[in-house]
């Protein structure tokens, strides 16, 4: 067959394809029917309307000097509800199925109007003995409490300040493997260890660079670069459940501003970073419907290494870099009746000590944010949240340095889910 016009061949192909599909349809329920093996599929949509007393451009340029690291110094337009007016925050397509008697497979595809990205995709074992489970692929680290939770599970529309400062608006989401062991105790006790690539730009990173001081090469870190360990335990006192956890993450921080550049000077960092986290969650059921819950996390990061930069006379220098950051949040949420929930949250960036070459850089510390929310659930598949934030943790660049720019925002958020019924974790 000799076809002159490509259009004709496309039409022909389509015809062949559709006749094939029709043929398949007439064979429904036949010997080779696979429809029963379709995985559980769910789609979640999240959108919001935002009013904020700061213009978008200025909002994107907000920063917490010394904390955001290493070169992504601006807040930027990342994260949910970033623009005034209407926001399409995300679409999330999730797939789950048992692979075979030995494995489960999960995948979460994050969708924006322009792009699709694999947020998580991992398999986990079903049958390892002795209370062990292996999970591997790309996943949200189990460091702390809020990090491994998907956004639609949160009680507030934004990530706690300290979690966003240390891991970014996307959280600590890495390629790697995790092993957990549930201890054979009468109370809940689990130990976990993760080996990850450690590419998180907010605290870690593997990029190699040329030292501006002497032109010598600092090689890229060969993976794995990040190790996470955690312990969680829980006890029940009457109808109250208390969950307590301690986590630690350590890895190398290697970053070059030419990769993620906003500041026009050549800077690079080679350091070791350790982050510890402590978390506490309490949930108390008042009756079959109403409950009150309290959740709090504390995180501390220490970075020790060398900063490669230029001095006041434009000469190349390489002072020691020492950073200590800590912060916490505490939130209380109450389920008031079948359809209403309300909560308060207090965020605080506590410590912000930056020392270069032994000199304290006097960065601002003790920076708070206050949030309040009320949520309405028509059913468990749809919910609407009204949240008020007063954020006093951010600064705008000025000619002489930075100046504090508190802002207030109101977010009306809608979150709806279709498809497979998601089971909730504690």
């Amino acid at each position, binding site marked *: 067959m000799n076809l002159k016009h490509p259009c004709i061949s496309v039409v022909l192909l389509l015809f062949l394809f559709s006749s094939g599909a029709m043929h398949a349809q007439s064979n429904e329920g036949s010997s080779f029917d696979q429809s029963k093996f379709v995985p559980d599929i769910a789609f979640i949509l999240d959108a919001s309307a935002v009013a904020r007393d700061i213009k978008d451009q200025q909002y994107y340029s907000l920063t917490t000097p010394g904390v955001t690291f290493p070169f992504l110094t601006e807040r930027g337009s990342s994260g949910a509800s970033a623009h005034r007016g209407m926001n399409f925050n995300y679409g999330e397509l999730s797939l789950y199925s048992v692979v075979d*008697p030995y494995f489960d497979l999960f995948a979460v595809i994050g969708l924006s109007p322009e792009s699709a990205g694999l947020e998580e995709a991992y398999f986990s074992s079903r049958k390892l003995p002795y209370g062990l489970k292996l999970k591997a692929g790309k996943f949200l680290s189990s460091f702390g409490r809020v990090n491994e939770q998907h956004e639609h599970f949160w009680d507030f529309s934004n990530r706690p300040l300290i979690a966003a400062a240390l891991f970014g608006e996307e959280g600590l989401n890495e390629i790697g493997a995790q092993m957990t062991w549930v201890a054979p105790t009468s109370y809940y006790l689990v130990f976990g260890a993760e080996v990850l690539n450690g590419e998180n730009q907010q605290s870690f990173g593997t990029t190699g660079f040329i030292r501006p001081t002497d032109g010598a090469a600092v090689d890229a870190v060969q993976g794995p670069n990040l190790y996470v360990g955690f312990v969680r335990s829980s006890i029940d006192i009457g109808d109250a459940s208390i969950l307590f956890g301690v986590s630690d993450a350590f890895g190398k921080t290697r970053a070059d501003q030419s990769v993620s550049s906003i500041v026009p000077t050549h800077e690079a960092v080679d350091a070791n970073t350790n982050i510890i986290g402590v978390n506490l969650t309490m*949930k108390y059921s008042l009756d079959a*419907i109403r409950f009150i819950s309290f959740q709090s996390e504390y995180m501390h990061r220490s970075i020790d290494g060398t900063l490669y930069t230029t001095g006041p006379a434009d000469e190349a220098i390489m002072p020691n870099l020492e950073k200590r950051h800590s912060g916490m949040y505490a939130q209380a949420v109450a389920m008031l009746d079948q359809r209403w929930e309300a909560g308060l949250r207090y965020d605080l960036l506590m410590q912000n000590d930056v020392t270069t070459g032994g000199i304290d850089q006097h960065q601002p510390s003790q920076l708070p944010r206050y949030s309040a929310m009320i949520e309405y659930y028509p*059913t468990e598949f749809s919910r609407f949240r009204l949240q008020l934030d007063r954020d006093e943790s951010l600064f705008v660049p000025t000619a002489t340095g930075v100046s504090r720019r508190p802002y207030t925002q109101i977010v009306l958020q809608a979150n709806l889910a279709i498809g497979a019924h998601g089971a*909730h*974790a*504690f």
Partner: protein
Amino acid sequence: MKFVKFILPLLLMFMQTALSSQLHVVATYGYIGDIVQRIGKDKVEVVALARGDYNPHVIVPKPSYIAKLRGADLLVINGGQLEIGWLPQIIRQANNGNVQSGAKGFLDLSKYVHLIDVPSSVSREMGDVHPEGNPHFFLDPDNLPIIAKAITDRLSELDPENRSFYEANNNDLTNQWKQKVKTWEEKLKPLKGEKIVEYHRIFDYFLRRFGFTIVATIEPLPGIPPTTKHIADVERMIGSEHVKYILQDVYNPQDASQYLAKRLNVKVLILPHDVGAVKEADNVFNVFEEIVRRLTNG
């Protein structure tokens, strides 16, 4: 020394679980736990997870449940998607291959009984519908022998040495049960054909078995709280159909039922749906005894 102090209790606890020859059984609801206990007696150690007076659809997935499931030889669930909102995560986090769905140590009771009201099509515009049918099958007393048999067979499969022990206990239970069902039937005879309204379709199995007619539900759709308009419709139906009783479970809000009771000549009866739902319903027999007592006293 510190090390010994920390490790010793851990080891002791480990040995406790390892040494006992009993089968460790976890049941999602109290009624299942009670049946397992009656068949397994001292050969099993049973824990029931959900509180009997809470909404069986929405149970808080406490981390302590993970610890209970970690060492279990058998998990017995109601099924029919009653546990779908809270149990799957618990199973995943328990790291116990014995009780994963499809394993020998996983028993879904809904697979053994006939479920009523299986929808021919499902859509969430119908509220929180269960595609496999109404999952509250325990409240048909004729289903208990079927459930008990399924549990007996599974216990025997996991612990073949005690097969005759489990079977004998099952026979005793079933005979005793059948006797009781006769007395309940006798007591409920005068109420046959009585028209009732219930809050949620939780007592359907019981009501059908004993010949009641269900006229309406206080919920407009499963899982959706009552609206003023719907309550007005129910009020009209109670009047025109001469309904005498509104059956209410222990966990849903009672304001709509009490409102109707105040306005019309209709009585609200609070009935247990599971072991532990009310104080008197402390075992499977007493769940039904109490339902019958409250209906006949009403």
